[in-house]
């Protein structure tokens, strides 16, 4: 079942949320990140309920960004903080952060965010 499906634009990421995965990809530099990410947090609440009700037993979060503005980064940190809490109750949740091989900053950012939020997240080169 599709929970959220937002097409990517030049300034906002593509978002796809269903009962199997939660995927954000592309560029994120919206005019108002807080407002834009409201729908993302609302979808996360739905996934949280399904996990609590044991309607889902396997779940994957994927972050496949090409660019993140610093104002968006604050929202991404908030999202990862929520995931960290969720992962403590549901350790089977997997989280993946992808980056282009030549994009060391994106790699470093993923590693730092995992450390800051205490999230078990795989930081992997985009294939």
């Amino acid at each position, binding site marked *: 079942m599709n929970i959220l499906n937002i097409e990517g634009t030049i300034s906002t990421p593509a978002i796809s949320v269903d009962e199997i995965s939660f995927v954000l990809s592309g560029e994120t530099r919206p005019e108002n990140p807080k407002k834009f990410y409201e729908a993302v947090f609302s979808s996360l609440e739905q996934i949280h309920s399904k996990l609590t009700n044991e309607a889902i037993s396997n779940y994957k979060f994927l972050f496949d960004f090409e660019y993140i503005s610093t104002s968006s*980064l604050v929202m991404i*940190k908030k999202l990862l903080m929520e995931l960290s809490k969720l992962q403590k109750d549901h350790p089977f949740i997997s989280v993946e952060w992808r980056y282009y091989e030549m994009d060391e900053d994106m790699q470093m950012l993923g590693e730092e965010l995992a450390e*800051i939020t205490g999230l078990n997240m795989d930081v992997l080169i985009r294939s």
Partner: protein
Amino acid sequence: MKIISKRKLTLQVFEDLVNNEVLINYYGSLNFELASYLIENLKLSLKKTGVDESVSRKIYSSFVEGIQNIISHQIDDVEQVPYGIVNVSRKGDSFLILLGNLIDPQKKSILESKVDAVKNLSEKELRTEFKKRLKDVDPEKSNSAHLGLFQMAINSNDINCYFNELENGELFFLVEVTI
């Protein structure tokens, strides 16, 4: 500080760039849609330069942070037309990013101290401070702990700021990032 007109200031800024290869150039009113258009155009221009991908990413990132900073800190006065200067150019092996806007004159010393603070840090210190600020920033509050300025400094080889007092009492703030 010499008092000049908006027109003279614009000409002066662009005159200094006359021998540079200009990738993008704009002056006038700025809003998010227009900024997005400029950002996309810069992306295309950077591809044409054939510059190394890592350098291209630094230029792109600094430009986005700077232009978003202009939009979010424009003077909120309905009687005043927002006015910005945006330019990216190449001179030899370096790229120069100029981003300027009108600011509240009372914010001059705060801005000056913020730029001075990042200017005197090494890349390692900047990255450490960026991480600390990212860790401490409260997502529920509106400010982003000046992460954008730190990101621009991390991307750059040098960062400077200039203030120009305009004849009508307005203050123009210009940030110059060299990559």
